[in-house]
């Protein structure tokens, strides 16, 4: 994590207050997102997403398995995130355990919803083949190669792209969700979307909202130690819905372009 002097922190806060961040973005603007699909040929589906200097890879492996006895008509999905030590020297060995647990659980909440599976991003019943006997097991793995802030969004986009790249017979992965993150900066109660590493080191708390294509909220996570006023959270949720619309459209077009490129080459 980069250390910042008081003057630099002041500059960043001032920029956020005046709606002009250090790289010229507005508070709610995303960095350009670059997607490549099919980067891991051995997996059923894979994608590499680059947001600024953050690079993540997601891969999906599909295997046949037995469904859980309590949910005979649903398939199983397990999500696991790993932070490579090339991203940060501190990630070596067990250094990244806390972060990976946080990212994995956030992704799980967004994509799998609550215990009953209601409101999930992935429709698990579409993964079932023969009720009670055979179903698809999806193992989704995320790998963070380089971190410049906003890993959660990059991972969400990568999982989405990997899933759309996955070819399993007769499975339609429906109602894709995309996660939005809005870290809040303490001064002046401003919040920003898609923080860089420096901005992230400054923030006091972050709310990640996962919104699906129909504008419904699939998951909500709050990270960070500072307390937030409920009205602020409601504001952030409504902004998240608005921003996620644009993000979903952009992601769709970028993923389609990546797939087209893939088919060409």
């Amino acid at each position, binding site marked *: 994590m980069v250390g910042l*002097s*008081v003057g630099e922190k002041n500059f960043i806060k*001032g920029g956020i207050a005046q709606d002009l961040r250090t790289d010229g973005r507005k508070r709610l603007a995303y960095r*350009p997102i*670059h997607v490549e699909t099919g980067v891991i040929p051995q997996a059923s589906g894979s994608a590499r997403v680059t947001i600024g200097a953050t690079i993540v890879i997601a891969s999906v492996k599909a295997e046949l398995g037995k469904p859980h006895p309590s949910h005979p008509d649903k398939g199983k999905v397990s999500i696991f995130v790993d932070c490579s030590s090339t991203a940060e020297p501190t990630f070596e060995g067990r250094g990244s355990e806390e972060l990976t647990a946080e990212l994995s659980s956030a992704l799980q909440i967004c994509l799998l919803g609550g215990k009953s599976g209601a409101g999930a991003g992935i429709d698990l019943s579409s993964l079932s083949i023969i009720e009670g006997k055979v179903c698809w097991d999806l193992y989704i793995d995320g790998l963070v190669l380089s971190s410049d802030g906003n890993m959660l969004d990059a991972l969400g986009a990568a999982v989405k792209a990997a899933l759309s790249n996955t070819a399993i017979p007769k499975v339609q992965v429906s109602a894709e969700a995309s996660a939005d993150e809005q870290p809040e900066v303490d001064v002046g109660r401003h919040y920003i979307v898609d923080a860089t590493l420096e901005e992230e080191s400054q923030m006091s708390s972050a709310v990640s909202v996962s919104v699906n294509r129909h504008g419904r909220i699939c998951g909500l996570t709050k990270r960070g130690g500072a307390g937030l006023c409920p009205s602020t959270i409601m504001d952030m949720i409504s902004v998240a819905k608005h921003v996620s619309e644009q993000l979903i459209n952009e992601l769709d077009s970028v993923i389609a372009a990546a797939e087209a490129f893939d088919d060409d080459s």
Partner: protein
Amino acid sequence: MRGIQLSLSKHQNLRLDRALEQLESLSSKENSDASVTVADDISVNNEDAILKGHGTTEMDGRVVATMCGVVERVNKLVYVRALRARYKPEIGDIIVGRVIEVAPKRWRLEINFSQDAVLMLSSMNLPDGIQRRRTAVDELNMRSVFEENDVLCAEVRGFQHDGCLHLQARSQKYGKLKSGQLLSVPPYLVKKRKQHFHHLDQYGVDLILGCNGFIWVGEHVEVRDDMVDDLSNKSEEQIKSWNTINDEESEETYTPLETRQHICRTANAIRVLSTLGFMITVENTIEVINLSITLNVGIHEMLGAEFYVVVAEKEAERRSLVTKRDDYQDLVA
């Protein structure tokens, strides 16, 4: 130039490749003759007593290069200079660094080098400006001058026996940098020039090109020359105000929006130049800024793919004009 992580459309890719090819062909033939790769022969006149420097070795009576780079000859010394080397400090270089440790009687700075640089307490002006011996009280108050993670600029004074750098910051123009952003670019893109402190008048922005690849873009700060003011004339007030420059107070006064826009534009211009692998000089930076203003490119869009391609094309155009002009002058003269 390393591969750029940009999502360029096919058309943009073509344009960028064409501009880069043009730039390559324009670089003087001399340079390409002098460049060598590993195991290339270095042509030497075997009669002279040649000193074999870094990056060369003798094999079967021939002098052969051991790394990729450009052959340099200085009198009898022949050596190979790598193109993408780590920062190579020299005495008198202007450096921008970040404090990572406050140690007894010195500060340790990180400067993008293999070792940390050291700034001694005695190489630093005291806040009250008086020239005197540093006492134990001064040592205890070191934190009030520079703390951890502060960004400051200094000059290289010399080397220690283990290769560590010694810095000095005795002039008013050196010292702590506030209100701005620090950018990190590959050090080989910043060449040593006469001037490293630039004040962009029309934008009110301070630009400090550190030779170590750290570049500071910030609000303009008036530099008062200490030698001009008579020390005895300074009132107690002024001295006290120096000591208590409270950063918490200045929190309320953010940088004005227009200056901030110029700062962000300058920073983005430098980011574009560094990703494209062009030399970072004030002229280049100002040209890129003017280009972005005339093309009405939004500050954020400067980091988009289209602007990169346009900058590369403009640079190719400019260089071809310069070569043509030089050729013409050669013809005339």
